[in-house]
């Protein structure tokens, strides 16, 4: 009969500290740093370029929300479609975007 090894001599691992659930890792590549959401107000396929970043933003239809570089916000929300409004229209009419 083979000699049984003395199991009491095997080094058992020692846990340092208390046992706890592994902390949630922050995945920085999904975080919208320096971005703000704006929404299209015009029922058209809008293609605009950010004045500062030069990024190209596409809004396929009215109500589309896109996260844009926050440096581009001022130039984008001031964009209007068309010149002087006609015939009793609101002076705030025809702005392309609004901040969400």
């Amino acid at each position, binding site marked *: 009969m083979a000699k049984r090894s003395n199991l009491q001599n095997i080094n058992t691992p020692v846990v340092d500290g208390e046992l706890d659930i592994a902390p949630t890792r922050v995945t920085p590549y999904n975080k919208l740093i320096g971005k703000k959401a704006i*929404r*299209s*107000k*015009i*029922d*058209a*396929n*809008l*293609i*605009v*370029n950010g004045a500062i970043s030069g990024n190209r933003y596409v809004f396929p*239809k*009215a*109500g589309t929300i896109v996260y844009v570089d926050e440096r581009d916000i001022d130039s984008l929300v001031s964009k209007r*479609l*068309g010149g002087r*409004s*006609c*015939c*009793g*229209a*609101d002076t705030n*009419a*025809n702005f392309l975007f*609004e901040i969400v």
Partner: protein
Amino acid sequence: MSLITGTPLGNVDSQEELYLEGSPYIYIQDNSANPLNNPDGDGYYWGMSGTAAYPAYALGCVSDVSLTEDVTVNAIRCDTIGDKDALQRRNYVDFVFTLSTMFPLTTIRHLLGLSTPTVGGGLEKVGIGSISNTRYYMVYAPKVYDEDTGDYLLFHLHRAKPVDAWTIGMGADGWKITGLKLRAFADDTKPSTQKFGVIVRADPSAIP
């Protein structure tokens, strides 16, 4: 002042000495949106509230505006005495007008049945393709008839679409789009008494 002689006796309602001139402003919106009053406290569906997803469009310089209806009349005719009755069915209500403002294309493309425009880089592009038969609009047309008090009359149509051929006249007297017709059909999601639309008059000095 009515005639003293020959007027009916008893309870007689008379019309008001009030005459209107000039057309209402006209607004359209995709009828996927709800009217502003949906409904109001009296059960009427009217008004317009533009949203980011469904903007309301204000039409510019309109002229020759008229509102008319189409009715089918079926006579009940007896060989003995001729017509006994005429049964009527309202088929639709038309808002007909001429438009002198051409831009932006994102607005008039709804009236002319053109494609969704692409806007950017200083360009507005729209295609002349097939007409969409699946898109309907609410039409809202308010008319302030007393500018001192703000009394107004408005027309609201629930389910309209542009019909018929348009013409863009390019004359020296100014470009005009004629033949524009917004045809309102019955909307059976609304109460039967207002299935085509609603007319509202606001005049606190004349209406209790």
